[in-house]
């Protein structure tokens, strides 16, 4: 039984079609990485799952509930949390306040201020600092912590590594096992193929809004991924 099932999804931005009949399913406890170049439709897919974008065709089903047209704020109580592209930390709130806003929906689960601070020491050190005064890595860690505060069943991570130094990316990905070990299903979108191959149990590569390659990291050959990624 899959936790999330996206079926034959079409998404348009005006006249431009970003996603063509895309199907993505993810089982509870799995970590799926969606990879692809710029403009492949990765972020659009996440936005359709979180409710920020309304698809023109197809359906999104979460835990047997059709949520295709559910507004974003009603998806959080169901157990979907998105760490958005660009992190979108609230700049005039402190780190701790950002986390507390994330806990607005009081779902039961393992995540609290204490456990987020434990998983992300980077965040704990900055708890009283304003969101506006964080480095990129601190923002990303806070954004993931903020999403976890709602104790999601499905965590959507958009472009975790974008614009961050490799050492910071390592630090942030180091917290992922702590997240998945609690049974949280993770859907990560990445341009950094190596990073996502390391953490994912399954990889799906998109090109121009369609799936071009799918499989377990161990089954996929490097050249296969390269040609799927670039469409050559």
């Amino acid at each position, binding site marked *: 039984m899959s936790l999330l099932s996206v079926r034959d999804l079409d998404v348009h931005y005006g006249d431009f079609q970003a996603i063509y009949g895309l199907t993505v399913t993810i089982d509870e406890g799995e970590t799926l990485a969606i990879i692809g170049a710029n403009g492949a439709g990765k972020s659009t897919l996440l936005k359709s799952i979180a409710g920020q974008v309304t698809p023109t065709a197809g359906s999104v089903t979460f835990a047997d509930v059709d949520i295709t047209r559910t*507004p974003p704020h009603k998806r959080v109580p169901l157990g979907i949390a998105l760490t958005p592209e660009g992190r979108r930390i*609230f700049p005039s709130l402190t780190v701790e306040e950002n986390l507390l806003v994330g806990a607005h*929906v009081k779902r039961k689960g393992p995540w609290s201020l204490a456990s987020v601070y434990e998983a992300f020491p980077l965040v704990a050190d900055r708890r009283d600092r304003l969101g506006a005064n964080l480095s990129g890595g601190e923002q990303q860690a806070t954004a993931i912590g903020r999403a976890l505060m*709602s104790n999601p069943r499905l965590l959507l991570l958009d472009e975790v590594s974008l614009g961050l130094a490799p050492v910071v990316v390592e630090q942030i990905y180091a917290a992922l096992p702590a997240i998945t070990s609690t049974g949280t299903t993770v859907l990560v979108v990445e341009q950094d193929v190596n990073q996502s191959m390391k953490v994912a149990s399954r990889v799906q590569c998109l090109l121009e809004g369609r799936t071009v390659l799918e499989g377990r990291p161990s089954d996929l050959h490097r050249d296969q991924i390269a040609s799927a990624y670039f469409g050559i």
Partner: protein
Amino acid sequence: MQWINAIIQGILLGGLYALLAAGLSLMFGVMRIVNLAHGALAILAAYLGLVIVQATGISPFLALLAVVPIMAAVGYLLQWGVFNRALSMGGLSPLLAAFGLAVVVTQLLQLRFSADLQSLQVGSLSVASITITDQISIGVLPLITFVVGVVVILGLQIFLSRAPLGRAMRAASDDPQTVPLMGIDNRRVYALATAIALATVGIAGMFLGMRGNFNPTYGDAMLIFAFEAVIIGGLGSLWGTLAGGMVLGIAQTVGAQVNPSYGILIGNLVFLAILAFRPTGLMPKAVTT
């Protein structure tokens, strides 16, 4: 001595302006709505108080207990029915909606109550005063108004910085697109913000009515004073609004001390000077978003 007296009276007057401006500041801070109907709604609250007082014979202070929740309910419905729609249309829609609302409220009050001057009677309290020295005495009602103004601003500030809902309001002010990802319904947060703003408008309108005469068009002048207090203090800062109210109040009373007809003029000049030399106001928000 008379100058000190003028300053003290100015500070007290500033409390009224701050009380009047608090809701304006809150609505702008959270939703970027410039509520041009603010003054008209304060006068609506005063008439509401008048109707209640005349129907029941209770004191205007007791009538506050009814006026404040009624105004809060009006605010909630106004945000759901009018401003949330206007916000989703973007651009100047909220401003125009507020302007239209101001006209409608004023005209309906005119229709129902005529342009006659009215006031809320508080008996001997309206002239009661505390004598400090021969030349300085403090009116009890202005003092109560001042204290209420400070308490309202302080209360709002604590609410915004501590309460979960206040935190959600600040988050919505920072980034309304991201707030729904936290499971928060912007429209509901906005409706509650306007409800709180109009609750403070209810208090302000009642004190306006107790301190002097009012008629349906009186809201226009009050809107300008409230605006000036917000701008002098710095947009989006409640402490700034309190300071701005006092600066405006002092400017008016000291100006009136120079020449009784200069009061409002000097107040406006101080406001223009702030706009020219310190356009961010006295206490601008630390974080600009």
